[in-house]
């Protein structure tokens, strides 16, 4: 037995939840689909996955860390209070659920927990949404992800066509469902089978093989067409590198952190000018090794979820599935 609701009734349910929680939903805003705070007449984007992944909910592109004021010799540092409201995030696809797991590994483990991330993460209740038809750029199953079961979800929602079905997984998730339990019908529902994938990648043995491929000539070949922009990293649900910068106005300022990308020159250049990764080859190699070897070495999982966003958005079609293929063939 599952709790079902007509898709047409979904706004009503979200409306109800929004009274209690901050509710984030996939929406089309100014031509780009992304997670946005629910409001009336918001154009929901439930047909396919959103262009901008949910990572900016936990790790915003720009985030204020603390304020400061410096005058003559004195200095004041003031922390910025965080929002405290619980947030319900509806409609996270399996690939993006996995990406949150990757981000959790980075921000919450290995001796230090990142307080900015942890705060937002702790306040979040995740409703995963199953996929029925993959987009032409999807390859999550190749990355070992079940497109119909979101890892780490508090609630799993299933797309049944006309209806949505909900299954409470954690206690927190169950609590959310209880708030709107009156809206559901209880019925047996068959989850539609997943469609065929257009894109695949075989990553078996790739992290191990890459251990001995640092000096391989494929990096020259792969990197040549790269433009060293950060479109891939900024649409990637797992890329998490950041910069810390000051925004100064006279004697006052605020320390911000913002997304950064290993494709940029200033990412690694040191004071004095030494540059450990001077060119396209070194940077592209670092990006793919990070995704396919370094991250697995450190956290025992790939840093790619097969969401396919970079495949779509790269201006030169530097396709990670193709890179994996080349690694396999090398």
């Amino acid at each position: 037995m599952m709790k079902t609701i007509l898709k047409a009734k979904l706004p009503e349910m979200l409306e109800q939840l929004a009274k209690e929680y901050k509710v984030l939903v996939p929406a089309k805003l100014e031509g780009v689909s992304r997670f946005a705070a629910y409001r009336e007449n918001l154009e929901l984007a439930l047909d396919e996955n959103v262009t901008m992944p949910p990572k900016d909910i936990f790790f915003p592109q720009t985030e204020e860390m603390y304020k400061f004021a410096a005058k003559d010799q004195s200095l004041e540092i003031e922390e910025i209070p965080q929002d405290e409201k619980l947030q319900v995030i509806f409609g996270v696809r399996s690939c993006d659920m996995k990406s949150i797991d990757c981000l959790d590994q980075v921000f919450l483990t290995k001796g230090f927990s990142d307080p900015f991330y942890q705060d937002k993460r702790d306040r979040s209740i995740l409703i995963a949404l199953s996929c029925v038809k993959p987009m032409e750029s999807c390859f999550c199953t190749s990355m070992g992800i079940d497109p119909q079961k979101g890892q780490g979800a508090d609630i799993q929602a299933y797309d049944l066509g006309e209806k949505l079905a909900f299954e409470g997984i954690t206690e927190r998730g169950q609590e959310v469902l209880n708030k709107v339990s009156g809206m559901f019908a209880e019925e047996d529902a068959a989850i539609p089978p997943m469609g065929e994938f257009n894109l695949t990648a075989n990553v078996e043995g790739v992290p191990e093989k890459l251990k001995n491929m640092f000096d391989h000539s494929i990096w020259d070949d792969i990197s040549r067409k790269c433009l060293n922009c950060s479109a891939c990293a900024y649409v990637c649900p797992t890329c998490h590198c950041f910069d810390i910068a000051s925004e100064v106005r006279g004697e006052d300022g605020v320390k911000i952190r913002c997304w950064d990308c290993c494709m940029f020159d200033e990412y690694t250049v040191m004071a004095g000018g030494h540059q450990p990764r001077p060119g396209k080859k070194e940077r592209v190699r670092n990006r793919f090794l990070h995704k396919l070897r370094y991250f697995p070495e450190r956290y025992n999982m790939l840093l790619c979820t097969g969401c396919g966003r970079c495949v779509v958005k790269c201006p030169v079609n530097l396709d990670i599935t193709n890179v994996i293929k080349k690694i396999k063939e090398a």
Partner: protein
Amino acid sequence: MSEMTKKMQEIAREILVKGEAEVVIGWEKGTFWYLSPPAFIDKPEDVQRLVWDDFCHNNLSKYLVDLKNHEGKAAVFVKGCDSRAFNRLLQDKQIAREKVVLIGIPCPGLLDQDKAKELGKNSDLPKAQKCLDCQYPNPLVYDYYLGDKEALNEVAATKEAADYSDVAAIEAMSPDERYDFWTKQYDRCIRCYACRNVCPACSCRECVFDQTRVGWIGKANNSSENQFFALTRAMHVAGRCIECGECERACPMDIPIMLLNKKLVKDINELFGEYDAGIDIEGKLPLGHFDKNDPEEFM
């Protein structure tokens, strides 16, 4: 295989076998049927990767900047816009003419990738906006030419007046409407700098937006900083933009960047006389020289 693809492969093979160039830069088929990304061919046996179809959008001349300090020669396929980009880079002394072999391709105008993705393979696809706006579909400079030379002259003679109706539509708005329009566009910007990196007019060794010293640029992503980026970049490429439209195509957030660039092209023409970047390498840049009789609107 199209006739042009065949010709491309043949000439690429010939160039590599004769050793006229070490590498041939062309296009190959990408992940999807509507993608034809750049390809670098070093070996004669790899030439069959090369294709010419309706989606060979990437402006290949940009890659010549990477080869600036490279010893050997490179051969590159050029459409009209690629050849204008080549001229521009030559004019800025970013590349050396003798290190490049240019293979000209007459361009019939390419198809819109986004529409192709949306409508599917067997539909009637519109041309890309940048191609509808294009006034120089044929290469202006080349060492080899793969098309019919007579047709080349014919096309050159029928240069139509540029269409600025899209720019005019924005000009017709009220200041507040214009501001809202652009704010909405640039609020989407994720500052990935794909527009800059794909742009053949953006060839500065060190871009101001890579500056790390406090105060030079704001790293924060917000309306104000994004507009600062947009306007700064527009002014930086003013008079040098060759209207290849790559910035707009590369933009992952679909910001209509060409609407800014076209506005500048239009105004330069109106204010300082007709000027198309990358046509005449002897000509002076509109913002790189002046005329004592320039319009006097300041007093």
